[in-house]
């Protein structure tokens, strides 16, 4: 779960990581008296805000007022700017990079640092990047900071600040259950101070039960995805025309893959999960219908999720939601025969394997 820059910086401040002086503005009336040059930064969860015009500079009250007005409410790649961060302009002498991320392969946190900051770390040559793994049973040790500053060849006064920041950044990573904490750029100012000019904090959404103070609407999600999340479904909007309901993330992905290989265009990913509840099925249909598909494919391999329950759900959804779009169903596994009988009764044919169901729905929706 991505945090807005300003939220990341609030956390940094709490953990003793220096950030620029600044404040968040949600309406033009929130602008304070101009007293020094500032940067006005759109609070959206996208890289490359600057290039998209989402960042403005102000050297006067007039600049500031107009900049805030222009940005608030503007659209950047489909995202509406509802907050801007007004921050002191830093006297940038040099930009460096530091982050801590999960290393999936080794299943440990990894510290990454480079003296090339301000650009995407992926674009920096490997031999210019310091990387080291951290033992999760031990946590951060100070020597890691010494190794990093040694690699970056920072002068002693800067190196000491860097080590303090890295140590605190690790605390953020650990205590706030982060997938990624990144400072890019970490600015060395003209007066020799290190300041986090940006803040990227991605928290593990599975950890939210112990971070009740954090509440964020994930703007990387569409409104329908957010609605689905609220209802407990794994749901991803795609740009095709076949609504998909399946059970299990892997099977659902496989269904999308097979559809795509058959020139079908899925409208969504929806994992029904393991359920034995008719309403869970009906609610899934409701979500999918909101995406206005041309046809709907239901692909169930019954286990914990019983085929007859799903069949009852399909019938109930058709009825309650007045669905007239074609529904193609595949049922296999637990209570498959009962399910097929229920659907037949309602005029729906249920295939017992995936292939014919996929061929059928791809053909129906083909005229897109």
């Amino acid at each position, binding site marked *: 779960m991505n945090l807005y820059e300003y939220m990341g910086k609030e956390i940094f401040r709490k953990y003793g990581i220096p950030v620029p002086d600044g404040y968040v503005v949600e309406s033009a009336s929130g602008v304070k008296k101009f007293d020094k040059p500032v940067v006005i930064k759109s609070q959206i969860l996208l890289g490359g805000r600057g290039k998209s015009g989402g960042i403005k500079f102000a050297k006067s009250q007039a600049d500031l007022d107009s900049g805030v007005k222009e940005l608030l409410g503007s659209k950047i790649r489909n995202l509406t700017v509802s907050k801007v961060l007004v921050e002191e302009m830093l006297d940038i002498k040099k930009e460096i990079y530091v982050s801590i991320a999960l290393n999936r392969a080794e299943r440990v946190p990894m510290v990454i640092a480079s003296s090339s900051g301000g650009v995407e770390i992926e674009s920096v040559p490997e031999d210019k990047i310091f990387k080291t793994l951290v033992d999760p049973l031990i946590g951060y040790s100070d020597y890691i900071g010494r190794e990093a500053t040694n690699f970056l060849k920072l002068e002693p006064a800067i190196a000491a600040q860097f080590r303090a920041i890295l140590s605190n950044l690790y605390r953020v990573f650990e205590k706030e259950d982060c997938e990624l904490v990144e400072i890019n750029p970490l600015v060395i100012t003209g007066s020799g101070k290190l300041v986090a000019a940006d803040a990227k904090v991605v928290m593990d959404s599975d950890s939210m039960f112990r971070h009740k103070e954090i509440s964020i609407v994930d703007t990387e999600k569409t409104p329908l995805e957010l609605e689905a999340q609220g209802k407990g479904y794994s749901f991803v909007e795609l740009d095709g025309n076949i609504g998909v309901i399946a059970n299990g993330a892997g099977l659902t*992905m496989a269904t999308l893959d097979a559809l795509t*290989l058959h020139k079908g265009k899925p409208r969504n990913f929806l994992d029904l999960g393991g359920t034995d509840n008719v309403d869970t099925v009906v609610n899934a249909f409701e979500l999918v219908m909101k995406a206005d598909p041309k046809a709907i494919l239901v692909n169930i391999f019954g286990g914990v999720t019983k085929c007859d329950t799903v069949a009852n759900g399909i019938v109930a959804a058709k009825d309650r939601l007045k669905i007239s779009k074609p529904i193609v169903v595949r049922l296999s596994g637990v209570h498959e025969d009962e399910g097929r009988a229920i659907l037949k009764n309602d005029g729906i044919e249920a295939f017992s394997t995936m292939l014919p169901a996929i061929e059928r729905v791809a053909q129906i929706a083909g005229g897109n």
Partner: protein
Amino acid sequence: MSVLVDKNTRVIVQGITGHQGSFHAGEMIKFGTKVVAGVSPGKGGSKFQSLDVYDTVAEAMKLSPNATMISVPAPYVKDAAFEAIDHGIKIVYILTEHVPFHDTMEIVHQARRKGITLIGPNGPGITSPFLCKIGIMPNQIFKEGDVAVASRSGTLTYEIVEAITRNGFGESTVIGLGGDPVVGLTFIDVLKMFEEDEKTKKIVLVGEIGGNNEERAAEYIKKHVSKKVVAYITGRSAPPGKRMGHAGAIIEKGVGTAESKIKAFNSAGVKVADYPWDIPGLLR
């Protein structure tokens, strides 16, 4: 022979009085698994079928369990796992999904330190028909045989196992690694076991987008696996940056694409099925 579990596996279920715990414990018993006790804090002294339920793993140790299924809410998983690990239970399977990965990291490394095999979290478990099943795979899809399956998914695994069985094959051991970015077993871990297992003749890997578990497995297969390996990778059509249901199924900054995984497997001589139902054909 089988991998990790067999007729001598004695299983406890931590969280046996919960909805999932009780259902799957019942199914495991039906499958023939030696479930020896349940653990549910606060429910000590009660019964699950004919089994005693204890408040603590410590008490259940008198039944000499060597495996556990943990089915407790995500916030309590770390504690339950440490409880099992500290009492030396050799196989710890975590059914629960949505475990914070910081917790899982600690569990993974503590398990490794103590020589314990961690399966999951957020996977369907392990099944060796019909010696032992720990987890949630449907009982009826299995037949004893020589095909070993390792998978990052749940239902998709059943789909494939069912197809294997329907096509006249059978399974030696089926292991679900789990759909989280951090899980106990890697494909390499299970490939090692499958390669050593006398009963296993052929191996099926079911991968998905996210991470580089499959790419590393492909490298390993080149060097160390003599048995036939076939694979299926799901998520070919997934857009980058989106989590496809599993917390681990996400293409990030170009890492973890299906293409990369398919290419890696092909270069290791592993045939990759286009569709799940093509797997049995590749096994012939």
